Every structure is written in structure tokens, then in C-alpha cells.
């Protein structure tokens, strides 16, 4: 019953996101349909004919009221139809998103996992060596890396490793000369191209995890049960296991939520390294006011976050006995 209720809430939230996205992107300055219409008029096409042409090209009735457009959009959405792109004329939105998603998921999930585990390791180590040079150094470094936005890190990495050292390739996610497929060459090429973007992501993200792990682990170390482990003569490995287990709990929700947010892609990293992922799609479709694509990407992103939230709540009660959802 509770799960059912939360599922209903999730659906309502998705509907609200869809509605808000629909209206807000139409409030943005710039209108691709209007531009196309103007262009046709300048080419000497009579206005009535221009409207017909636009309808054929974009599957849009330019004079329709926004409310009718909204209802039509919702109706199509309920049938799994995300519409067709305005910029890539005639291409349905769903395949565009599906083509972009794997690259984002690949980069961000690997980056997220690496940064989470680096953060966990460093955070626990810092908490264990409180007030030593290691704590001072690593806490400062984590704060600094936490503060540097990842487009700066990405840019520095790009310049240093591709232009100066020439160690890594520039742009794209695989060598276009290699035919995509599950061949060794293709996978190796993808891996080679992913190193820098993943590194940029990790450098931007590990600081946050380090600092949150540190504070969680310090709270656990201050709890009397840590002392109770010691006084009962448990080994340091057993104590460490308890420390890590109890410190991870407060981070778990953040981690699962990040898995949802990752569908939005790392916009700046994907732009810097020209990776055709979801973040790149967000950036380009917004720049070109490709309404259907924007709506589609935002819907996927919001849906992923809502699903992740649902998962986090459900899973959290499994790993922490104190929580009953």
C-alpha cells in the first residue's frame, strides 16, 4: 500500500516535470518554428503555403494554441511517442536519446563509482588519522577539488594531455575510422577516449565524497560502540569493517540519487570533450531550441532522478535496520 502510494506520487511528480518543462521551454526567447517561417517568407513563399510546409516538415501546426499543443503532446507521450526533432528534421526523439544515453552512462557511472570509492577510502583514512599532516593535507585538497568546477578540470586536462603531452586523443568517444561493434579495437578505442573525461569527472566529484565520508566516519568513531569493539579485543580489521559499514549508511542515499542525476550527463565534460552523450544533447538541443528533444531529455532526466529516489528509499531500509519506509 505504501509502495503503491509512493509510486502514485512518483507518477504525479513526473507529470508535473513534463508540464513545467513543456511550458518553460516555450517561454525561452527564440523560436525555431517562427525562424523557419520567417525564412520561408523571405524566400517569397506565400504565408499560407509556408504554414503548410512547416506542418509537413515539423509535424506542427504553427497557429495552434499552446494548450492544444500541450494536450496533443501529452496524448502522444502516453502512447510512447516523444515527437520528432525540429533540428534533425523528421528524426524521432526517442532514438536520438537512446543513441546518446550509453556514452553518458558509461562515462558517468564509471566516474561516479571511482570517485565514490576514492572518497570512501580517503574519508575513512582521514577520520582515522585525525589532526595529522595527512588529515590537513587531504582535507584541504578535497575541499579545493570539490570547489573547482569540472569544466575547468576538463579544460586543463584537455590542454595538458592532448595538446602539450599528446598522450590522449582529442574529441569524440571513439576513433571514427573504426567500425562500431563489439570488437577489440572498438572497445579499446572507447576506453582510450574515455580516460580523460572520466578523470575530469573523478577530480570534480571525489572531494565531495571524501568530505562527507570523513564527517560520517568521525561521527561513527565518536560513538561508544567503536570503543566497545576495542575493549572486547576485536581485531583492527573487524573494527575497520564496522567503521566502513556504519559510515557508508548516510552516503548511500546520495550515491543512489547521483545514479539518477547521472542521466543528465556531465554537461560541461561532454561538451569539453565533444562526447555525443545526454549532456551534450541537452546543451545542443537547448542552444538550437529543439523543443521535442529538450522535452524528451528533461523527461528522461527527471524520470531517472525520481526512480533513483524511489530506489534509494526502498534500498535504504534494507541496509539500515533503523529505517522503516
Amino acid at each position, binding site marked *: 500500500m505504501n509502495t503503491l502510494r509512493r509510486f502514485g506520487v512518483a507518477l504525479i511528480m513526473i507529470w508535473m516535470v513534463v508540464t513545467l518543462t513543456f511550458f518553460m521551454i516555450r517561454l525561452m526567447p527564440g523560436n525555431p518554428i517562427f525562424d523557419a517561417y520567417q525564412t520561408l517568407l523571405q524566400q517569397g513563399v506565400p504565408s499560407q503555403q509556408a504554414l503548410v510546409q512547416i506542418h509537413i516538415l515539423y509535424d506542427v501546426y504553427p497557429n495552434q494554441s499552446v494548450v492544444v499543443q500541450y494536450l496533443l503532446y501529452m496524448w502522444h507521450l502516453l502512447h510512447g511517442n516523444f515527437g520528432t526533432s525540429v533540428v534533425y528534421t523528421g528524426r524521432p526523439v526517442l532514438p536520438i536519446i537512446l543513441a546518446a544515453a550509453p556514452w553518458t552512462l558509461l562515462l558517468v557511472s564509471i566516474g561516479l563509482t571511482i570517485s565514490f570509492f576514492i572518497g570512501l577510502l580517503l574519508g575513512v583514512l582521514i577520520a582515522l588519522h585525525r589532526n595529522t599532516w595527512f588529515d590537513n593535507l587531504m582535507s584541504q585538497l578535497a575541499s579545493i577539488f570539490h570547489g573547482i568546477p569540472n569544466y575547468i578540470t576538463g579544460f586543463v586536462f584537455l590542454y595538458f594531455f592532448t595538446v602539450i603531452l599528446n598522450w590522449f586523443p582529442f574529441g569524440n568517444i571513439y576513433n571514427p575510422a573504426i567500425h562500431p561493434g563489439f570488437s577489440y579495437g572498438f572497445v579499446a578505442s572507447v576506453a582510450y577516449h574515455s580516460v580523460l573525461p572520466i578523470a575530469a569527472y573523478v577530480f570534480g566529484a571525489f572531494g565531495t565524497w571524501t568530505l562527507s565520508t570523513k564527517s560520517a566516519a568521525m561521527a561513527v568513531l565518536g560513538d*561508544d560502540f567503536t*570503543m*566497545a569493539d576495542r*575493549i*572486547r*579485543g576485536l581485531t583492527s580489521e*573487524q573494527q575497520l569493517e564496522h567503521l566502513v559499514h556504519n559510515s557508508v549508511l548516510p552516503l548511500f542515499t546520495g550515491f543512489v540519487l547521483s545514479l539518477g542525476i547521472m542521466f543528465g550527463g556531465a554537461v560541461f565534460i561532454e561538451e569539453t570533450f565533444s562526447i555525443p552523450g545526454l549532456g551534450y544533447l541537452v546543451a545542443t538541443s537547448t542552444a538550437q531550441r529543439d523543443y521535442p528533444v529538450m522535452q524528451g531529455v528533461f523527461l528522461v532526466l527527471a524520470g531517472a532522478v525520481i526512480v533513483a529516489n524511489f530506489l534509494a528509499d526502498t534500498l535504504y531500509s534494507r541496509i539500515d*535496520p533503523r529505517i522503516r519506509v
Partner: protein
Amino acid sequence: MLACNDVVKQFAIRRTWGSRQVTVVNRVSVSVEASHVLCIVGESGCGKTTLGKVLAGLLAPTLGSVTVDGTLLYHPGNKAWEREALKIQLIHQDPFSTLNPVHTVREELSLPLLHHQIVPKSLVGEECEHLLTRTGLDPKVVIDKYPHELSGGQRQRVVLARALSVRPRYIVADEAVSMVDVSSRLIMLDLFLEIAQKERIGLVFITHDFGLARYVALEGTIAVMYLGRVVEFGGTETVIHQPRHPYTKVLLSSIPPLQAGDDFKIDKVYPRSFDVPSLELLPPGCVFEPRCPYAFDRCQSALPVLSTVVHEPGHQVACYLEDEETAVV
């Protein structure tokens, strides 16, 4: 015998510029025999919890030594003492943070049993149930529960069972009942005493409450601590009915009587000030001098040492008034 000899414990306090040492426990020597009770009484911040941790083998003393049945604890370079330290178990004040929230009672109890191979692996479950039964819990009800599903009293019983699981010879109970519901406090105390008696466990009972101290250590000894030092030491009845140190008198005077006329038969003594001096800035003479209603000039110059009261063997006081009285007599 669990004993500490001339134990000093200092902590470094970090300041913007460097750090400074603060002496939390200062030259304390106390001891307790098996199946005896020692109470350490003092207000918060007097170092009684730190002393408890030093006695339990959790903190190394800065100076001095702790011995358990003749074996020296904290032997640098010799890890064997850690095994000896198992003989002393500590029971914390807060039964809510001393149990790991993600472990069930069974996991909590069986971990040390398995690790130290106290009982054969096949008997671990049985031993857990036995421990719970001994502390007055129904194993069937609590064994698979998580700490948050238990009441404060139940938790403290689990903590006691956990302490007993490693077969200790001494238990240091640090304010062990102050967070238990008032209604079940006496039952918990009786349980402590009963188990300590039965198992011949030496009990160090740390409290701020003279009433509790008197109940627990009726046959035992009381050490009154003030700002890291023992100011009075003696048999429970002696300390409570013939207190010599002004601080002990102040503490006893602060006990609210339950009934008119039910008061202790001592004269009420009130301190001159209710501010406890900072450990970082102790007075040069007797540490109690700034608050002592009887202080005279000698108290400001040097610290009185703990010495036996004349004609009262086993009763020790650190106060210059003793010398004065003897001189007068």
C-alpha cells in the same frame, strides 16, 4: 586486583598557536579486589570517566601504571597485555550509542565469542542465550532484534551481557544506570551487584550520585575525585557519615532529602562559589581552595597530599584542615 598507581593522564588541547597539555587525571592511585566494589564519585569534568577508560585499558596513562592481577597493562612493544585487558570490561553511560545500530543482539554478542573462541563454534548460539538469560532478558524476544527496537533498560542489559561475554574479572561501570529509566534503576543496580557477587567480579562504579554510590558500595570503598585528583578515600560508611574533606561535605550537602528528618546527620556545607576552575588554569595551591568555605592562607600556597586520617586507618584525605585539627588536639 585491578590497580592504578600514580596515574597521570594528559591531553593535548589544540590552540591556534601550538597546543598545550591539560592534566585530566593527576596522580591517582586506586584499586579494587575481585568481588569488591570501588565507587568513584565526583561532578562532571572531574576526570572520573577518563580514569575509567585508563583502568579499562582504553587509554594509555601518560605517567604511572595500571596492573590487573599483577600484570602490567600498556606494555610498549608487548602486545600480550591487550589480551589481559579483556579481563576488564567497560560499561558505558549511554546505552543508545554503545550498541552498533546495524547489528542484531545475536551478532553483537557472538562476535567476541567467535573471535576469542571462548566457546566452541557450535555452542555460540546457546552461549548468547545463556548470557541474555543471566541478565534477565528473554532470549527468544530480544536475540534477533536491533538495538533501536529495545528499551533503554533492555539495551543496558544487552550491554552487560556483552561485557560478560568475554568472561571479565573486573567491570568498570561508567554512570551505567544514569540513562536507564528511574523506575528500573534499582533493579539494574541489583543485577550488577548480583552478577558481580556470583562471578566474583570486581566492580568499579563511576557515578556523580552519592546515593547510588552508597547503595552500590555498601561494603566497599569510595574515592571522591575533584579536578583530576582523589581528595578523599575510604570505606563507604566512613566517607558518607564522617566526611573529612570540605568537597565531600559539599557533595553530601547537595543531596536532596526524600523526607524531612531523613537527612544525613552532617552539617550542611556550601561552597563559596559554584564555578569549577578550568583545567587549563588550575589554582596554585589546593585545587578546591577557590570554592572552599574553610580555606585559609596555607591552602593557596601548595597542594595538600592524600594522607591517612589520624586514628582512622583506611581513610585518606587531602586537606590541610586535618593537620590543623591534629595540631589543636
